Each structure stands twice: as C-alpha cells, then as structure tokens.
C-alpha cells in the first residue's frame, strides 16, 4: 500500500513538473536570449554561456523603447481605470437592480466580447484621422476600454452577486437612498472584485497588438508590443534579436510577478464570468 502511494506521488510529481516546464520554457528562452552576448546570440544554447546586460543597456538608451514603455503603461492604466469605473457602475445595475433593458445590455456586451477587432480597424483608422486622434493616446484608449468593458462587466457582476446584500437593505432601512447604499456600503465590499477585474483588464490592454500597430504611426503612441515588432537594433550593423528579447523580457517580467502574486484572484476572476452562465 505504501509503495503504491509512493508510486502515485512520483507519477503526479512527474506530471506536474512536465506541466510547469511546458508553461515556462518559451519564457525562459526569451529571457536567456536577452542575456546573451552578441557573439553567442546565435549559438542556440538554452542557457547563456556569456552573460551580459548589454541588450538592456542598449534598449534603454533609445527613445524608441523608453517612449513605448511610457505609452504602454500610461495607455493601459488609463484605459483600465475608465473601463473599471464604467464597468463597476453597469455591473452593479446588472447584479442588483431591476430595470427593463438589462438583457439588451448583456446581449450588447456579449456581442462586443465576440467582436473581431480587425472589423474595427479600417473604420477606426479613418474616423480617428478625421477626428485628429490617430496616433495619440486617446486613439488607443478608446478601443481598449471598449473591448475590455464586457470582460469588466461580466467579472464584476459575478463578484457583486456574492456580496452580502442584506447590508444594503439595512442601509436602506436606515434611510439611505440606493445611490448612497452603493457608495457607502457596497463599494468598499466590492473593492477586491474591482481590483481583480482591474488586473484582468490591464493584462488585456497590455497584450494588444493589432490596434497598437494599426492606429499609431510614430513613437507618439506606439506601445511596446508594436514597437518591438518594428525594432531595428541598437546599431544598424546588429540584428535586433538581443534588443527584442530584452524588451520582451522587460514587459513580461512585471506581468508574471503580478500574476504570481495575485494568482488566486485572477483564477477566480477568469472563471467567474464564464462558468456561471
């Protein structure tokens, strides 16, 4: 019996190690490339034989990357903030209030969750040029917050349905209006759900590539994923491999740290919206 249990344990350990390796090895590969010396960049080794910070020094000396990093962070943060605020309002109404048109709202956000971004690229490209927001921050914030709104509404309404609503009733009995009950009682309780949603929305905005290359043309608003696709290398005699790997690592590591820190919340958030249905 003990032997069987031990074999069982070994088998699971092997399976788990395989799963972890599967998840991590492309990440390790790009990190390892970023630390390779130009002379060993093409040796195909899984672990750098000559470690160097050269690639990182290179990308941080060019505005091409630093500007893109500022754009990425700024655009994703603002889009996340707006999407979460609007999403919180709508999700509260969906989870809590009775009003005609709720089905319509849910249908609309479902429609947008399924919307192919390429269908929006050509009209938005033209509209944004006319409005003068092509190649600006608002030009990217608009589509980002729109496409993350359905995610925000679903996740938040799933969280909101688990809040002890008796407290709201109590507040109303004490004479609070529905708006006051929302602001003073429910909002603080909802904070963890809101935070989780913000992480998911941020990852979504951070990840976008299609809008980022379509609706920008210069460094003014180009985000990191778009910028690294157009990298030319820190000097013209160099393949940009090292720079791309370094830039890729810079935008990956913070997200991974974030994901590891908040993994429980993220799993809850990712699954709450979809499975309840």
């Amino acid at each position, binding site marked *: 019996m003990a032997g069987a249990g031990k074999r069982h344990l070994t088998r699971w350990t092997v399976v788990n190690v395989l799963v972890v390796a599967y998840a991590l090895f492309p990440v390790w590969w790009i990190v390892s490339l970023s630390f390779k010396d130009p002379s060993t*960049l093409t040796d195909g080794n899984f672990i750098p034989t000559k470690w160097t910070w050269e690639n990182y020094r290179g990308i941080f000396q060019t505005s091409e990357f630093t500007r893109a990093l500022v754009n990425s962070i700024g655009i994703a943060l603002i889009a996340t903030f707006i999407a979460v605020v609007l999403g919180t309002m709508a999700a509260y109404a969906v989870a809590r209030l009775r009003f005609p048109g*709720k089905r319509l709202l849910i249908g609309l956000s479902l429609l947008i969750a399924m919307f192919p971004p390429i*269908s929006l690229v050509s009209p938005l490209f033209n509209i944004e040029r006319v409005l003068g927001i092509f190649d600006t921050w608002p030009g990217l914030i608009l589509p980002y917050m729109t496409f993350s709104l359905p995610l925000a509404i679903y996740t938040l309404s799933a969280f909101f349905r*688990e809040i002890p609503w008796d407290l709201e009733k109590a507040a109303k009995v004490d004479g609070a209006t529905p708006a006051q009950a929302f602001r003073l009682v429910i909002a603080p309780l909802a904070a963890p759900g809101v935070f989780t949603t913000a992480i998911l929305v941020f990852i979504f905005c951070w990840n976008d590539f299609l809008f980022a290359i379509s609706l920008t043309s210069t460094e003014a608003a180009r985000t*990191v994923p778009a910028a690294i696709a157009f990298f030319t290398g820190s000097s013209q005699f160099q393949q940009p*491999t090292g720079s791309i790997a370094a830039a890729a690592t810079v935008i990956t590591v913070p997200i991974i740290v974030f*994901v590891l820190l908040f993994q429980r919340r993220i799993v809850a958030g990712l*699954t709450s919206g979809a499975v309840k249905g």
Partner: protein
Amino acid sequence: MRRTGTEEGARAAAAGAKAPAEAGRLSEGARQERRLGWLLCAPAVLVMVAVTAYPIGYAVYLSLQRYDLRFPDQAEFVGLSNYGAVLSSPFWWEAFWVTLFITVVSVTVELVLGMALALVMHRTIVGRGTVRTAILVPYGIVTVVAAFSWQYAWTPDTGYLAALLPEGDAPLTEQWPALGLIILAEVWKTTPFMALLLLAGLALVPEETLRAAMVDGAGAWQRFWRVTLPLMKPAILVALLFRTLDAFRVFDSIFILTAGAHGTGSVSILGYDNLFTALNLGIGSAISVLVFVCVAVIAFVFVRLFGAAAPGSEQGGR
C-alpha cells in the same frame, strides 16, 4: 460548490427582501431603482455603441465605396463590387481556409490538452498551487513576446528547437510546418485559459455522483465519459465558444512568426495587409465586414445548434 450555495442564499434573501417592498410602496422605489439602473449603465452602453456599432456601420459604408487611400479624391460608390472582388479572389479563400484550419485544429487540441490539464489540477495531490500558478504564465505573457520566443526557437542557427531538426530545415518558411508552429504558439498561449474554465466546470461535478457511479461499478474512463463530461457540457460549450471566436481572429502570432507569408495568412492578416500595405480602404473594409459576418455565423451556430448558454443570460432572466 460553496460559492453557488452562498449565491442561492443571497438570491433567496434578496427575493425575500423584495417581496414586501413590492407589495407596499412599489411605484416610488421601483421607479427610482429603474432610473438608477439606466443611469449606471448609460456610460458603458454609450461607449460600446460609439466605438463599435457606429464604426461597423461606417465599415459597411466604406466597403461599398471604391476608396484608395493614395487617391482619396476618386472615392465613389461602387455597390457590392468590393465584395465581388474579395469573394472571387483566391487570396480571400486561402486566408479563409487557413483561418478555419488554425481555428479548428487549435481549439480541438486546446480542448483535449485543457481537459487533461484541468484533470491534473483537479486531482493532483502534490504541488497543486505551483501548477496553477505556472499555467497562468502563458495567459499573462504578451502574445507578441511569446511569438518572438517561438520564432527565435525555430529559426535555424539561433534556436534550440531548430537545432533538433535536420540540417537546412527552416520550418517557418514552408506552409504546413509554419501553420503547425502557429497552431503550437496559439495552443501554448491559450490552453491555460481553457483549462481554468474547464477546471471551474469540473468543480461543479458533485463528488457523490462520481462515487455513486464508482459503487455501481463504473471504471475511471466510464465515469469520465458518462458522468463528468455530460455534467460539464455547459462549461465546455462556453469555453469552446469563446476560444473558437478568439482563434478565428488570430493575428498577433502569425504577424510575428511569418507575417502571413508562405500561405499562412489569416483573414485578419489579409484585412490588415489590404488596409496598410495596399492602402485600399474599400477592399479592406469589405474584408472587415466579411470577418464580422463569419464570427456572427460561428456564434449563431454555437448558441442555436449546440445550445451554448450565453454567459450572463442567467442574470438576464431575473
């Protein structure tokens, strides 16, 4: 299990709370509630309509024009001829079949792998947290970054994976191997998401039912096919619907891995190229509209034929 319990409780409490209120001073409270509901939803609805409905209408309008960005003055109404041009073009059909192929293969592989991963996470006794954390990494990583990693891995002279291939093989420059690698990149990136959705579905399968089946003599395999899978059907369908629509939009991985060369371009790549390389807004918009129609058909098939419950429909019914 526990969460549904509290949810039911909360709902029952809410229903109980509502009943007397409705019997009493219904009109004022109800009207206030209704107005607040609309007020709270209005901004989100406005943004969603302004940024999607209006542009898609505009895309339909543009698709009926001959509109070359190099000669914007010569724009004129040409009816459906852009659609005719796209639908009679071999490029569209190649892109369409490529997209469909990538979608079907990657979603199938993801479902099988995702189910396996979900079962591992559900049943494992050691390191459950580690596994769950690790598989979130592909979800969190930027698609473009992952695609670059794969590209370097498969490029001869640079990559450790290309080194495993026979000398002179450059898989990214041949159609079928390149498609395979695109699918691999997609599968790697999105299987964890699938697995998490399925894991949540697995958690809803009651342990007692499985034990009862075991007592009745059902083997592990039988229990999985006859008990677990049918009970998970709603979760599976939702996961499939989401992933299918997502896979049909595939763009990032292809753009980085092959840029659509060697017959690997998806419909999204084709639309992008027509817009930004050929600068043809009319044709590009026609492709945009056609992709939209494809996605609508896929969603319709899932919801109507397979009966996938749209997420959120439950709270909509209230």
